[in-house]
């Protein structure tokens, strides 16, 4: 098995081995359930609108989950002095970063999968559009990929878990606030900010069932950039 998959598998198992992972999972399920109850139950809405609202709330919950999962990634290993094991192994820095990224992303996607009972309820009790569901989940996966990469970068950079969480929370929130920035900016900055906005520009069409090619380019590109920054941080620490 490659070093990337080894590290990813260990990360995923570690997340479920302790209370922390289960606590995040429980929180995600609780928030998804509460929002679903608040927005949709008891109101007469079309199934497509119910599903759209679910993806809307699940997007926010998933972003938060990504921040909470990744804040531990490198920062916790540094605090527990286990990072040296990876840094002195024959695995390259990019393999270490990619392994940690895939492990964290795997856990975030597990939380997404755990909340799939809500679309199942829509399917059972309403008229689920499979295309909208597939597009919505693709959008969630892409947003999770971006937020997880941001979190990994912050965890590699920050001195401790708290700082990593705060930094990741700020950057992830900024991804959503680019829309507001574009509204108060002059051309050409407004277009730049709008293109960088994670929710309105990139995710919103997916929750309505539309798959945009630009998002299929945007999400991997931004993820790659933050992972590259993470590799550079690890390399810089060897020189410090």
């Amino acid at each position: 098995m490659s070093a990337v998959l080894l590290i990813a598998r260990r990360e995923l198992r570690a997340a479920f081995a302790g209370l922390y992972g289960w606590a995040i999972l429980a929180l995600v399920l609780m928030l998804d359930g509460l929002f679903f109850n608040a927005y949709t139950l008891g109101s007469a809405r079309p199934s497509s609108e119910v599903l759209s609202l679910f993806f809307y709330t699940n997007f926010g919950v998933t972003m938060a989950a990504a921040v909470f999962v990744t804040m531990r990634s490198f920062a916790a290993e540094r605090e527990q002095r286990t990072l040296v094991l990876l840094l002195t192994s024959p695995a390259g820095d990019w393999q270490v970063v990619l392994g940690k990224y895939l492990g964290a992303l795997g856990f975030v996607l597990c939380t997404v999968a755990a909340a799939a009972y809500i679309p199942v309820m829509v399917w059972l009790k309403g008229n689920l559009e499979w295309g909208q569901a597939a597009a919505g989940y693709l959008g969630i996966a892409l947003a999770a990929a971006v937020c997880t990469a941001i979190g990994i970068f912050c965890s590699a950079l920050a001195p401790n878990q708290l700082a990593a969480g705060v930094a990741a929370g700020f950057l992830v929130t900024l991804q959503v606030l680019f829309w507001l920035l574009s509204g108060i900016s002059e051309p050409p900055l407004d277009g730049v900010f709008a293109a960088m906005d994670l929710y309105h520009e990139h995710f919103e069409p997916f929750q309505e069932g539309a798959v945009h090619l630009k998002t299929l380019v945007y999400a991997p590109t931004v993820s790659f950039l933050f992972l590259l920054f993470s590799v550079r941080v690890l390399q810089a620490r060897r020189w410090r």
Partner: protein
Amino acid sequence: MTAVVRTERLSKHYGAVTALAGVDFECRAGDVVGVLGLNGAGKSTLLRILAGELLPSSGRVQVGGVEPGVDSRAMRSRVGYLPEEPPLYREMRVRDYLGFVGALNGVPRNELPGRMALVAERVHVGDCLDRVIGELSMGYRKRVGIAQALLHEPDVVLLDEPVSSLDPAEIVGMRELVRSLGGRRTVFTSSHHLREVHETCDSILVLHEGELLAHGSQEELGVLAGRERIEVEVRGTPAEAASALPAGANVVHAADPGGGVSTLTLELSDVEREEVAAALVRGGFGVRRLEPVRSDLERVFLDLVRGEGGARTGGESGT
């Protein structure tokens, strides 16, 4: 014999702080090398560079002929490293942890169980393979840490303060373990406990404030420190024999066991053993025995550190 580890003008700076300053040494295969120094001497930094965790600010380092700047991953595959705090995932069982580390270091899957059993037996952790690491004592954690460093059969094993936080019984066991690792692979063990180095190492690197003050066997360091000690057994009384000694040979201990024979322990400075023997013979004393006295490492170390700059790399045990 070929040097397994070689450094040339190796330096490392943390901002304005110099952790290592132009360190040069070579070590041969199979040696157990003690890295000795006070806190902050640069011991851990040296080991971290040899392990590939850090890159040097300047100078060169080679492990098994490979330099980190050329192929750091190949260099890291030749090294097994135990930091002062063992890098253990406490939620894992020992068997899973060793399996993970072995696979990460490229041990083929079909060889892993055999290697694990072998290493577990060698470091005496066979009885705790199915226990959770977080539940182990510090002694066992250190042993598991050494097991992970040995699993991929590296050419060089680096142990940073392996006896720290251990109780006396565990220290004895660890000392035997470190000693047993030598021969087939080169072992570096850092410590500021002189007794550990004294009892486990073939050669010693003495670091002080980032500089390598000396490198060699304990006897060679005694010479470097400027005061070689010898013991002579002569016919005659101690006082008479002492009067015949040349300048530079000072009596630090004299014994008169009887039978007309005395034993003198001499500290030599600026005088050779041959001159001492010749002077005694000229004085009419029959020299029955003359041999070097294994230097007290504590005295040697303090002499070196206090006389910093006076002694430099010497023994080159590896070359």
